């Protein structure tokens, strides 16, 4: 972290707040804020993570390879990529896995990823900001039990991923049409005990997080999330916005446009009317909080959350509530699970375009593929949550700076970094969607 410029209110007019290497985010990014007197002249979230060109390298691959290849976009949320890709391929091939044990297992492993990813963010990436530590390992010197309980909850999420998916990072058991092997009922039962423990930890996490000191910030963003009747949407549904938009994944391209700006190796997404929007826990909570499972709903009430939460700093509480929900949901699935007749349904390729949208831990993740009659991928488009959130994060940064002008540079920089971490940006994800151009060949 560095704070260039004179810093004090009486000094020359230009003041620059910058962090060249953002810590405790997934991937490589930087932040730059320039003040002219007391007005914010420029705010930039810069993403310099090198592009990996997934959309280009998917061309010519088999449609069945998409879940294994796109998982490699992100080691923190591989299930999200696998789920959006299999949904899109099934959509192209006119197959629907929308109920029964195969659907349940997909939702179960997705709950595992939410638990793993949210535990990581709440305890290891976000909490140190509130308690004044550089990271969780430093925090553990004074709060070892708290960090250990966060790690144990994370482990429970990972154990769901490992049992259903084969391993925690880049699971191997997800395929277009279902799974390679489905677990037995007895195998799934072994997850009950760790998940019961995680549920208790998650409830304690809500109470603990609710008592953290939050700056009084209210941000009015348009919010976009998946929505499914009767359930807090995770792996299937229509897309809805707080402002009243409602469309299926197939219409995503009509409602969201991407643009390329110089400061970022990730495309920026906007609504087609030009407006910015936010995806992630705050959006999901605002659109579906009435559909939380009972303990999660009660924990949210006790934590003082209303039907929506407009303070991005309190997203840590919303993530904790989603942790409770994900544990309850996973336990309910395990309880009712009956082994399916076959681990997958047959999927025959046809020349078509398919769309898939699911809720990654950090927000809506959209995939679109065009395939030919042999199932070869002709075109791919992937819009990850952090690409969608970049402009909203910059708006938050601007607002936070305007509210905190009197903080000394170092504390202002920290407040700004925190405003970015509020949205759990995954820069590794966001960067991988540029089409390839080469500097030298």
């Amino acid at each position: 972290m560095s704070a260039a410029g004179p810093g004090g209110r009486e000094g020359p007019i230009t003041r620059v707040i910058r962090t060249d290497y953002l810590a405790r985010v997934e991937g490589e990014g930087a932040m730059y804020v320039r003040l002219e007197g007391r007005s914010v002249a420029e705010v930039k979230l810069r993403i310099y993570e090198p592009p990996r060109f997934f959309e280009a390298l998917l061309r010519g691959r088999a449609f069945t390879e998409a879940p294994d290849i796109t998982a490699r976009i992100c080691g923190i949320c591989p299930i999200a990529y696998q789920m959006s890709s299999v949904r899109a391929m099934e959509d192209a091939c006119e197959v629907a896995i929308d109920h029964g044990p195969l659907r349940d297992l997909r939702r179960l492993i997705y709950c595992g990823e939410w638990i793993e990813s949210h535990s990581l963010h709440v305890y290891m990436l976000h909490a140190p900001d509130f308690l004044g530590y550089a990271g969780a390992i430093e925090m553990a010197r004074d709060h070892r039990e708290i960090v250990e309980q966060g790690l144990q909850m994370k482990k429970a999420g990972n154990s769901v991923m490992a049992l259903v998916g084969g391993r925690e990072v880049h699971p191997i058991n997800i395929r277009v049409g279902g799974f390679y092997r489905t677990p037995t009922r007895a195998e799934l039962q072994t997850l009950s005990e760790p998940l019961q423990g995680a549920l208790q930890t998650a409830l304690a996490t809500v109470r603990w997080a609710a008592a953290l000191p939050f700056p009084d910030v209210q941000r009015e963003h348009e919010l976009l999330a998946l929505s499914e009747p009767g359930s807090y949407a995770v792996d299937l549904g229509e897309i809805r916005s707080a402002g009243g938009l409602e469309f299926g994944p197939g219409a995503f391209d009509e409602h969201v446009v991407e643009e390329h700006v110089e400061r970022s190796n990730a495309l920026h997404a906007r609504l087609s009317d030009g407006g910015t929007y936010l995806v992630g826990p705050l959006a999901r909570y605002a659109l579906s909080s009435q559909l939380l499972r009972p303990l999660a709903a009660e924990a949210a009430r006790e934590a003082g959350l209303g039907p929506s939460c407009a303070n991005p700093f309190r997203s840590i509480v919303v993530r904790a509530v989603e942790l409770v929900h994900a544990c309850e949901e996973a336990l309910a699935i395990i309880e009712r699970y009956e082994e399916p007749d076959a681990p997958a349904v047959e999927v025959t390729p046809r020349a078509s375009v398919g769309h898939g949208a699911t809720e990654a831990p950090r927000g809506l993740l959209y995939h679109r593929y065009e395939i030919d009659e042999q199932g070869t991928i002709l075109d791919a488009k992937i819009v990850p949550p952090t690409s969608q959130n970049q402009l909203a994060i910059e708006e938050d940064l601007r607002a936070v700076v305007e509210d905190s002008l009197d903080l000394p540079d170092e504390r202002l920089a920290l407040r700004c970094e925190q405003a970015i971490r509020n949205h759990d940006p995954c820069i590794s994800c966001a960067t991988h969607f540029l089409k390839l151009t080469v500097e030298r060949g």
Partner: protein
Amino acid sequence: MAHTPRPTLAVWKFASCDGCQLSLLDCEDELLALADRVEIAYFLEASSAAVEGTYDISIVEGSITTAHDAERIQEVRRRSRVLIAIGACATAGGIQALRNFADVREFTSVVYASPDYITTLSTSTPIAAHVAVDFELNGCPIEKRQLLEVIGAHLAGRRPRVRAHSVCVECKRRGTVCVMVAHGTPCLGPVTHAGCGALCPAYDRGCFGCYGPMETPNTAALSARLQELGSDEVDLVRVYRTFNAGADAFRAAGDAAADRDAAR
């Protein structure tokens, strides 16, 4: 413990998905104990506190895809007593090394709004193509227990116990029935480096080569067998060109299949 200087550990990221460094945070039962034994002096994903200077052990994730990173890895090497490359990106160039096989014109014809904003190299290369590497740990992703073994071995001053035999050996040890012999399922196990514990066959799936080539891979024999099982040349190109496409043996096997396909 705090009074005796502990060995310092740094974790570096290049082009990657973050999954291999996450494996360190996934050591939920061991992480805090490890932090007692070593000083985690640079690990940006986990902490904003960075210790300047040199490090006893550097863990490097990711491949080299930009001119800036090609310089940065030199700096990392200078500041590291021991440098360990982890994961398929760092040991073979990763999935992003598929660009190495692409016709540049074909890739540039994929129209992009403002290509001038992007700077990248035309290749993705492993760490060892740029600097001396003390140990390479294979895998996409790596196996976290192997990572602990490698760190522990370097702390103890011994060679890590990481076996370079094939996945087949792991299937035998695990008691998994061979999916290729019993079910005719195409499987890269015979030519793939052990380490995952033969995960895929245990899930009724053929190995797809996440851990790269084993020590003495006979890819020609495997390719012939896969063709008997119904794979065509295009399928063979695909199976060898995934996360370890840039590893020598897989690159050669994929290129051979591509050449046969072109000659048809």
